[in-house]
């Protein structure tokens, strides 16, 4: 047994020695001359100059997230000059931290992080900065003591989505000749205090305050889920007999609301009694729109890959990049060619 313990010890030492060897060679060669640099240049000339990108994704909890992952994966391909290392954190920050440390160790060129929570990133972002690896955040933001710890952020502008919804409603009502009529509105809010909920509620409210005839009957938390959305909509229908507009802060709640409206014997959509506005614009929602149940849907674009790639290309050329980069987003209503839009939809 003693022999065994000694054997293990020797093997472990060998392993550590062997592994530190690799780095020690670099150590001595680097200051010695330009050998290494020339070697690198040769590699570049040979075309082995992929930009190595490490992505730490939150997980695959929603269709939106899956579409976002797809977008990133299809952007950072070898044809586009990238070598991608993708890590799915399965909804755990510890996995994301571990993935980031592995990326730093592997000396990737860029780290793309979709942070699951806002706090607890200071230490690892500092490590990345010390290693000279730019970190680009996507979708969610982080709360750090020093903003320079990350290079850029790419994501949705939820406030502008809300504003778009308000403006669309304003134009639509004018077209219908109801511009000065009293309009009763109810809102199904997303999970309270989530970024999407705050932005969309505020954005819509900023348009609403210009219209005295718009009357917000009630706002209530529908938790971004179909069942909760249906429940809340049923309550609304019970307490208010004359609802003109439903603003639902995501597609899932919209589906619940439509069900509740139909159950109550009312109709919705362009031909119906109630105007339905929705956010996210997933494929299923566009299909519901084609069936005439939703008036307008405001996109939350998961197609973040190309924008992130643009930022990386800029950084590669040594250009400055904007710290906060909002992704381009649009909206859909039945005046458009929904059939072809649905086919193009990635999620």
């Amino acid at each position, binding site marked *: *047994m003693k022999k*065994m*313990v000694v*054997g*293990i010890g020797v*093997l472990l030492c060998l*392993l*550590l020695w*062997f*592994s*530190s060897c*690799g*780095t020690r060679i*670099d*150590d001595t060669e*680097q200051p010695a001359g330009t050998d290494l640099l020339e070697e690198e240049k040769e590699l570049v000339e040979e075309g082995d100059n992929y930009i190595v990108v490490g992505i730490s994704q939150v997980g*695959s909890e929603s269709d939106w997230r899956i579409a976002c992952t797809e977008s990133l994966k299809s952007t950072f391909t070898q044809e586009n000059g990238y*070598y*991608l*290392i*993708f*890590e*799915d954190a*399965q*909804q*755990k*920050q*510890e996995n994301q*931290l*571990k*993935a980031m*440390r*592995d990326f730093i*160790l*592997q*000396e990737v060129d860029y780290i793309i992080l979709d942070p699951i*929570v806002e*706090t*607890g990133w200071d*230490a690892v972002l500092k490590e990345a900065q*010390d*290693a*000279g690896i730019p970190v680009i955040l996507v979708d969610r933001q982080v709360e750090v003591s020093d903003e320079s710890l990350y290079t850029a952020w790419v994501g949705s502008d939820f406030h502008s989505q809300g504003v778009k919804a308000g403006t669309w409603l304003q134009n639509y009502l004018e077209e219908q000749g109801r511009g000065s009529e009293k309009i009763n509105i109810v809102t199904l809010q997303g999970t309270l205090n989530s970024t999407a909920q705050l932005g969309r509620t505020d954005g819509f409210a900023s348009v609403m305050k210009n219209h005295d005839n718009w009357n917000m009957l009630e706002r209530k938390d529908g938790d971004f889920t179909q069942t909760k959305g249906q429940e809340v909509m049923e309550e609304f229908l019970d307490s208010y007999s004359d609802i003109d507009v439903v603003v639902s802060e995501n597609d899932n709640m919209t589906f619940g609301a439509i069900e509740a409206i139909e159950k109550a014997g009312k109709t919705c959509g362009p031909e119906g009694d109630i105007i339905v506005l929705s956010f996210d614009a997933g494929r299923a929602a566009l299909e519901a729109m084609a069936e005439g149940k939703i008036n307008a849907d405001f996109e939350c674009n998961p197609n973040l890959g190309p924008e992130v790639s643009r930022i990386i290309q800029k950084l590669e050329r040594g250009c400055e990049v904007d710290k906060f980069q909002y992704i381009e987003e649009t909206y859909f209503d039945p005046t458009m060619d929904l059939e072809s839009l649905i086919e193009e939809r990635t999620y």
Partner: protein
Amino acid sequence: MSKGFGSKMKNISDTNLLLAITIVVFFLMYIGAMLFLGEGFLKPQALFNILNANAALIILSCGMSIVMITGGIDISVGGVTALISMCCAVYLDKAGGSVAVSVLIALLIGLGFGLVQGFLVAYLEIQPFIVSLAGMFFARGMTTIVNTEPFNVANEAFVALKNTRIIVPGMGSVNRLGNYVDAYVEIGVIVALLIVVLLFCVLKWTKLGRNLYAVGGNSQSALMLGINVKRTKFIAHLLCGILAGVGGFVYFLHVGSGSPSHASGAEMNAIASSIIGGTMLTGGVGNIIGTFFGVLSLSTIQNIVSSAGLDQAWWTGITVAAMLCLFLVIQSVVMAARKKGNVK
């Protein structure tokens, strides 16, 4: 180690043979990764990162191995870890408590689980699987009762402790900016290594250690030899509980947050590590050093999978499954071959 392996084989006990297999496979795997994947694996910090991320799992697996050596199992350790993280997080963050007391809380929770489960298994003779299944559900449920939302701890003393790094001299490396970065391990790793050494000694050279193997090998004969089987089983579960307490705190120290989904599946990883490390589910065979290498093998294979650019979520599961199969087959083949040899 390969020199004279064949002739010595018969003199090595089952436990040591399985241990040798584990260690050889681990080194082959790691050296293979260094040769073929290079980059990250060539730095000593890669190994230290594996240790940092798995210090808690090493401790949990040690507890698991002890219980498995007596022929039992404890699937509550993951739940206990989550409960400890949440309780300590709430205590430190919301009640502004001190770190020392939070360590005590962790140990007490672990001890509590060990006492109750040990009593139920040893003295009321309930199946350990069922007892710890209930323990797991209870721990997970309690975690959610304590707090439902995941959150990070901002307590200064704790964060300072969490970010404490023990520099390993001479193992650093130069990054591409030309800066020398020291290699480091976290406090949890030191705790884990101490526990591995301590338990190795306990199992190897103490009466308790021998009793554990005897009870697991054949509890009838152990009883006839005058070993207090019930007490031994009780102690095994108690030890596992306390280790879950220590492991839970080390885990908490590593992640620095409380969440109901923390350490999900940790019990299964601990079982897998123990099995890869040469501990047998049937009891009586096992080694703490093997368990240690079992954990390292398990996470090395995960690192290999992800650095090879494979989509981690399901590839990891599949490779771990393949590895478990491989080890089980190797184990049973080797054991069968030895039995045949003994008969001749």
